[in-house]
């Protein structure tokens, strides 16, 4: 029933963008503001505190470093997926999407271990402001990882049908999801040193 919405797949000449690309960048701009507010809160807590612990004294740096590698790897796999889809290689592209999803799982499992260890020592958000902001920021970041994973799962399984109906539209969806995923990686790139290493 859907009437054709212009520029869903092909780019509008004057902007050079297709709708989804513009849409995802706008969404990322809003996410920039969301995490910005949290970083602002972190700074205000830290500068207002009588004493603020160094992250490396309280948090598991090796685990988080591993997680950083995992997330960076997942950023590579998603962009390789996109490249392979553009080459027409659906099987390889899908394999890289699955790798991305797996990295996401890996990240969440490591995070669960991290949180679990803390909880077993009764270190909850209420413990002090450091833990409060640590759990809140990494928790919200983790929710974003899960959100991305859900979309990848859709593209790998039910959503893969679109490859045969409208190939370019499918490739665009991989691209926009990838952009979101890279942003989630970007947030972690700043979150990791800020919370764990300073």
């Amino acid at each position, binding site marked *: 029933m859907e009437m054709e*919405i212009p520029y869903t797949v092909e780019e509008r000449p004057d902007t050079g963008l297709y709708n989804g690309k513009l849409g995802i960048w706008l969404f990322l701009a*809003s996410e920039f503001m969301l995490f910005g507010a949290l970083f602002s809160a972190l700074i205000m807590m830290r500068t207002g505190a009588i004493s603020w612990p160094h992250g490396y004294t309280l948090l598991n740096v090796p685990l988080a470093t591993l997680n950083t590698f995992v997330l960076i790897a997942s950023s590579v796999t998603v962009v390789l997926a996109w490249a392979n889809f553009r080459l027409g290689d659906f099987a390889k592209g899908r394999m890289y999407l699955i790798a991305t999803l797996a990295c996401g799982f890996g990240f969440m499992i490591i995070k669960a271990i991290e949180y679990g260890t803390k909880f077993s020592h009764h270190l909850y958000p209420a413990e002090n402001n450091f833990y*409060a902001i640590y759990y809140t920021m990494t928790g919200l970041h983790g929710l974003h990882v899960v959100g991305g994973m859900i979309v990848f799962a859709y593209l790998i399984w039910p959503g893969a049908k679109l490859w045969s109906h409208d190939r370019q539209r499918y490739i665009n969806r991989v691209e926009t999801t990838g952009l979101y995923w890279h942003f989630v990686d970007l947030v972690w790139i700043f979150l990791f040193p800020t919370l764990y290493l300073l």
Partner: protein
Amino acid sequence: MAVKRQIRVGKSWMSPKEAEVALREALRAQKEEERAHGHAHSFWRTYVFSIDHKVIGIQYALTALSFLLIGFGMMLLMRWQLGWPGQPIPGVGGMLGEANAPGGIMLPEFYNSLGAMHGTIMVFLGIVPLAVGAFGNYVVPLQIGAPDMAFPKLNMASYWTFLPGGVIILLSFLAPGGAPNSGWTSYPPLSVIATHGQTFWLVGMVFLITSSLLGSVNFIVTIIQLRAPGLTYMRLPFFVWAQLVTAFLLLLAFPPLEAAAVLQLMDRLADTSFFMPSGLVVGGQVVEIAGGGNPLLWQHLFWFLAHPEVYVLILPALGIIAEVIANNTRKPLWGYRAMVFATVFLGFMSFVVWAHHMFMTGMGTALSAFFQTTTMIISVPSVVILTALFISLWGGSIRFNTPMLFALAFLPMFGIGGLTGLPLGLAAADIHLHDTYYVIGHFHYVVAPGTIFAMFAGIYYWFPKVTGRKMSDKLGKMHFWTSLVFINGVFFPMFIQGLAGVSRRLWDGGEQYAHAGPVLHLNKFMSISAFLLLIAQVPFLINFFKSMFWGEKVGSNPWDATTIEWAAAPSPPVAHGNFHELPVVHRGPYEYNPPDENVEFLPQHVASGSGPGPGLPQHAVAP
């Protein structure tokens, strides 16, 4: 023998029974044909989970208008208490429950709940969904010549995130401890130690903010990407510009509030101390938390959104007024370019004035000077826009229909609202006026006889496009004049009370304070005006529903307007795709009485001006 009644069906005459059979057969055949072409949709897909921007716009409108009525009802309860403090509320007093109003007499906590909920509902569940969700969704794609929004499914998701958010907020009345009562501003530490209702508020806000974010992405992409060929930015109707800037405000200003809401939820549910200072003692008990938090962090993050939010409340209204004025003066808007640049500048400036809501928090002189300066600067673009609208009337051939009456009244009312903001934006005067009724008077003038009047103008103006029928002008004028008089009766005395020093959020209207004595009688006057204002809405409600079914039928362009939604689409527009053929634009949006052409008005999408052509009715040609 009596002649049996015959019904004409097509070319034949048949009995009623046969006619019924024939009708059912025809409908069945039609549905079959639609299904074959893949067009059939269940009732649910067509009217409930629709992805058509017009249906979604109507959903937003009906929902938002309902919420506005609910918020209005809460205000009436408050005004009873303010006019007759401690007196049992007539009629509904017994229905409010013992926890809220034992013996029908309102408890202070319930008054505070009503205050917090009235503000929250009016701003987030009423005005923004109506101005942006309803008017924006319905009109913008039509005005830019698009078949729908850029992301129709996302549009549906927006509405279906908004509705649960609104329901959650309303459900808070049923929570143990009642609805949130820490103001619509939810300042900690009070909001953190408040009862469960506050959690409902926070969760509801997360839903609403999500809905808003999805919507704003949709609006921006739609306006940038789906403009018809020939529709350059400077040919856009001002309404579309207003919606574009509004969408950017929502996109970038709401996320900090979402972050703050998460932090407050953590404080409430996980006992963190983002906003909780050390050494807090509540009811003689030390609060067992880590402490070290800062209540001002909430205020900064809240107002970082809430200031741009007030421009979200006014910009779509200015957009509607501009459309109605251009159409009913039969001449182009004066200073269109200035209005556009002013709007964009206003959008940017709205992000750097927020702390003028925090002058009384102990900020230093440097910071105070900064925010006073930016606040004074931001008044300039508002004045530019209002002045341009006033000047647009000069030399016009004014048609005093109902939408135009609301638009004309909007101008001085918004003027009063805007001017009374100036002393609030100057820290020295704000010392006296902060948290008094002066503030309430100021912002209500901008939003009530300001934005809401613009909403009414929009409803009367676009009703024929949505329904194919006109609303009654007689009932409309009745609605207008009574509303105008009584709304001023409700809000003007607030300036007087505020200047006398009467604080806001007082459950007894200031009764206990000596300085309020001389102005206390105004409470009764305002309350009576409020009840009369309620009655003034009756002609509107009757008109709205009656005209839907029995209003005078009209063609596609009853207002002889130039913009595409009128001139190129039928009333109501084509179900899927809006236009029989997508329009191409050839000129600006307000070519009324164009100088070199032989016509009274020249729609944007019509190719040439000499003589009637597609979209240009005969009577548009000058005699």
